[in-house]
Structures are given as structure tokens and as C-alpha cells.
């Protein structure tokens, strides 16, 4: 939690700020660079509004937790950030989702490129039924042929950063399905970071894991936050408090649409919430 108090100068984390177009995402009042920004974002499934009018900045090299009761649109909002909702027939988005100041829903944007820059880790560990090596190498292989030695080093580097290397270095050719749930989830993290994303989305990454494996993933997230911007959806209040720097609390309004109730530093949200509903939720009075 200590580092959340430190304001990282925007010029340090994002050297490409000079670009005129990126003025949009410049610094906020807190002096932090917004890696991604939601500008009046609504997500609709045909005529049903799942998420309504969310304005929110995700800061570079910070962990932001999206919390809220079931069905409030947390996952929908998360999946809007790498256009995974595109896969659902009838889903559409209004407003703008800015990555480094550029709208990822703009017509000239390549969705493949968006997903390479914004990686994702899912609720249940979902390794491919391939070897451990092939799981991690899957992403890099998509982006053209590379030399065997280069691929080897990407795989090792990714597994090391996912804190899994020591456990699997002697069985890279074995099936990933034989790993434990916690190991599988770290493998999925390694697979996601192998394509060098800038943002990592995590959709309840620990909900299928036991407490020990959960703790490992949380430690890993803190380490990864030094290099990546992490956005996590979680049902677990303690986890949100433990791991995140910022927290966004979502709730459904009277039309069943998810709306942003409160957003701020995690410490403030958990110790001194401004909104009554946030306080009720965090103290367990509902949800």
C-alpha cells in the first residue's frame, strides 16, 4: 500500500506524452498518468443497458479494483476494455474507451492490436490443452515466425515473471492440464504477459483458487504492477483492500444498469467512503 501514496511523474512512466493527441489522457489532479480512460461509456446488450455512463481513469502502473454486487456490470465493463464484448452478438458500446488517449473503438483501430496491448486473465484457469511451453508460446507465435532461441527466452522470461519458472522448468513439454489450479492460473498470467501487453485485465482471477494459491497470485500482481497497469474485478472485499491502489464501486441503478457509485484510492474507499451505498456494501450490509 505504501507505494500508492507515491505519485509517479507522468513523464517517467509514459515518455511518449509529447504527442498532441495524447493531451486527453494527461495527468489528473493527483498527478498520475491515466493509461486507460472511460469517457461516458455505456454498454448495451440489444436494448438492455448493462453499464451506464461510466467515467473513470485507470492509472499507469497501478492496480485498480472494480468491486460491486453480482450483476452490476463489473465483468461487462472489464471486457469492454479489450473489446471482448465484440464477441457477444447484439452487444455495443457508446462513449469512448481511451488507451493512451486513443479510442480503441474507433473504426480504424485493429482489434487484434488492442487485445495484444490489453491482455486478459479469466475467472477460471483456462490453459490450452497443450504443453506448458506451447501455452506460453501461443501468443508470440501469432505475431510471426521467430527463432527457436528467441521463443525459448520469451517463454522463460514470462514464466519467471509469473513466478512459475522454478516449478515447471523441468517439465515444459508436459501437458498444462496436469498443473494445479493455482499453477494453471499463473501459467495463464505468463501466457498473457508473453505478448508484452501494457494493461492486464483480471476477471476474478482467484475465485476458483484456494487461499494459498490466492495469496501467491496477489503477491504476483503487486510485482507485475511495476511494469503493467492492472485492472481487477473481484467479489472479495479483503482482496480488493489488500491488493489494489484504486477502487471503483459499481452498483445497479433503478433501471438495472450498472453505474459508478464511487471511485478513489482504495484506502479512502475502504476507510472513509463518501457514499452511503459504498459504506453499506463494504461493511457487508448487502451484496
Amino acid at each position, binding site marked *: 500500500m505504501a507505494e500508492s501514496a507515491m505519485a509517479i511523474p507522468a513523464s517517467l512512466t509514459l515518455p511518449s506524452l509529447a504527442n498532441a493527441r495524447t493531451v486527453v489522457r494527461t495527468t489528473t489532479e493527483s498527478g498520475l498518468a491515466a493509461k486507460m480512460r472511460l469517457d461516458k461509456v455505456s454498454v448495451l446488450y440489444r436494448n438492455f443497458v448493462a453499464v451506464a455512463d461510466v467515467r473513470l481513469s485507470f492509472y499507469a502502473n497501478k492496480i485498480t479494483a472494480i468491486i460491486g454486487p453480482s450483476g452490476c456490470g463489473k465483468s461487462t465493463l472489464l471486457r469492454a476494455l*479489450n473489446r*471482448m464484448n465484440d*464477441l457477444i452478438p447484439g452487444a455495443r458500446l457508446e462513449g469512448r474507451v481511451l488507451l493512451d488517449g486513443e479510442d480503441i473503438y474507433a473504426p480504424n483501430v485493429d482489434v*487484434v*492490436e488492442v*487485445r*495484444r496491448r490489453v*491482455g*486478459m486473465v*479469466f*475467472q*477460471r484457469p*483456462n*490453459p*490450452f*490443452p*497443450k504443453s506448458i511451453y506451447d501455452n506460453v508460446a*501461443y*501468443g508470440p507465435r*501469432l*505475431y510471426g515466425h521467430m527463432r527457436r532461441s528467441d521463443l525459448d527466452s520469451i517463454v522463460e522470461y514470462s514464466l519467471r515473471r509469473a513466478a512459475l519458472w522454478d516449478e515447471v522448468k523441468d517439465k515444459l513439454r508436459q*501437458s498444462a*492440464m496436469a498443473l494445479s489450479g493455482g499453477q494453471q492460473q499463473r501459467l*495463464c498470467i505468463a*501466457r*498473457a504477459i508473453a*505478448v508484452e501487453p501494457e494493461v492486464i485485465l483480471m476477471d476474478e482471477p482467484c475465485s476458483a483458487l484456494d487461499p494459498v494459491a490466492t495469496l501467491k497470485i496477489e503477491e504476483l500482481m503487486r510485482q507485475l504492477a511495476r511494469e503493467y497497469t492492472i485492472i481487477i474485478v473481484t467479489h472479495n472485499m479483503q482482496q480488493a483492500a489488500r491488493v489494489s491502489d484504486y477502487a471503483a464501486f459499481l452498483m445497479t441503478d433503478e433501471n438495472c444498469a450498472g453505474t459508478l457509485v464511487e471511485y478513489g484510492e482504495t484506502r479512502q474507499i475502504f476507510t472513509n467512503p463518501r457514499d452511503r451505498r459504498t459504506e453499506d456494501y463494504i461493511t457487508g450490509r448487502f451484496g
Partner: protein
Amino acid sequence: MHQRVRRSSNIFMLGLTGLTTVVGIAPLVWILFDVFVRGASAISIRFLTDTFKPTSLGGGGIWHALVGTGILMGLASLFSVPLGILTALYVARNPNTLLGLAVRFGTDVLSGLPSIVVGLFVYALVVSGHGYSALAGGVALAILMLPIIVRTTEEMLKLVPKSLREASLALGAPEWKTSLQVWLPAAMTGILTGLMLAVARVAGETSPLIFTALGSNVLSTALDKPIASLPLVLFKYAVDPSKVRNAQAWAIALIIVALVLLLNISARLIATWRSKMMY
């Protein structure tokens, strides 16, 4: 009193279901037993490796029919497997589109179609212009295999968790790569099981071959000429006045049954192996 009535009616119903099960399974056991008893005596290495000879020379063997059946199965698989799997991918990917629903309805109808109708269709389409051939027989069998392959492959693809495809797409993989490199491989053992069952289903088909492959007494591997097959030879020998031919017919029946059984057992083995390997 009530209890006794309940207990005795329970025993009666249990007995009834047991009896119907036995009655239901009896024909299968009977057929297998009868075919084995009558067929086994005529099977020898000679019979398997020799080609057709007149009864005056001992009747010969069925090597030409074994080769013919192998070629017909191979051709039928070659035509139906790629088409069937790609169709299944489309249907599993777009289940509720107009084309997806149409394909599913179409395969249901096709799988219920009498095989002789399929034979007649191929006769009109291929044979009437180009003559009887192994190729025409392969096409007829492929049409019969197609609906089975499409439906089993589709079911197997639907069993693969959607999150697996999403994981691939989230890495920036396009849909076609996701389908070929993640979705299909994840369902592969199940698909293989379906393919074996499809082959087993047409291994004994006779009527569509009468119009198409025609049958032959010589060993042939030419795809544009009539070709022998086990069921066709069985049919011919069974109605032959010669006792030797009749015995050979039973032997062929045993070989076909063994072939189908083998395919079914392999399909089962692959299925159990799969459940151990995967989720």
C-alpha cells in the same frame, strides 16, 4: 399391509424391467453367437489372402473385397471428414443463424434418409454419366457419413469451454486461428470417436454400393473401375446355391461384425482416454 403391497409391486416392476432388458439384449447376443459359430469355421489365412476363385477350385478368398472395402472407406472418409468437420465448426460457432439452423435440420433429415435413396441419387449423378466406379461408391458412403460426423463433431465442439476460445481471442488471435489451433484440438479425441462411429456405421452398407461400386471378382485398386466390397460379396454368396459360398458368406458376416466391433471398441477406448486426459 400397505408396505407389503408396495414391496411386492416394487419387486414385480423390477422383475419386469429386468426381463425386458434381457429380451432387448437377446437378439444381439444371439446374432453374435450365431455369426461366430457359423462363420469361424470358414475363416483361414487362405480365405483372407486369396482372391476370387470358382467353387470348383475351392472358392478362393476375399482379399479383393477386403482391399475394396478399405479403399471405399478411405475414399468416403476423405470426402466426408474435412467437409463434415468444417461444417460442424460453422454450426457450433453460429448455432442460431439461419444457415446454422438450416444445416442442423438438413443433417437430421440426411441421417434419416434410407441409404438406398442415397445410392440412387449417386447413381443418377455420377454413375449414369461415368459408369460404376469405386469413386461413386465412396461418394455414396461419404453422404451417409456426413450427417454423423457433423452432429458428433458439433456436440464435441460445444463441450469445449467457451473461456478456452476467449483466452485465445484475448491474446489477439483471429477467429480462424482460434478454431484451428485451440478449439478443434481441444475436442479432437471426441471428434475421433465420432469419426470411428461414422466409419463403423457405413462399413456394412450394401444397398448404396449396388448402384455405385457395383462389385467385382478381381482385385482392383483403380478408382474409376467397379470395385469389390465385403457386404456386396456377402450378399452375392448368401444367395448362391453352392454350400461353399454360403459358408463363405457367414465368414464374411463374422469379419464385418468384428470390424464394426473393433471400431466401436476403439472409439470407446479413445473416449475413456480423453476423459482421463482432459477436464
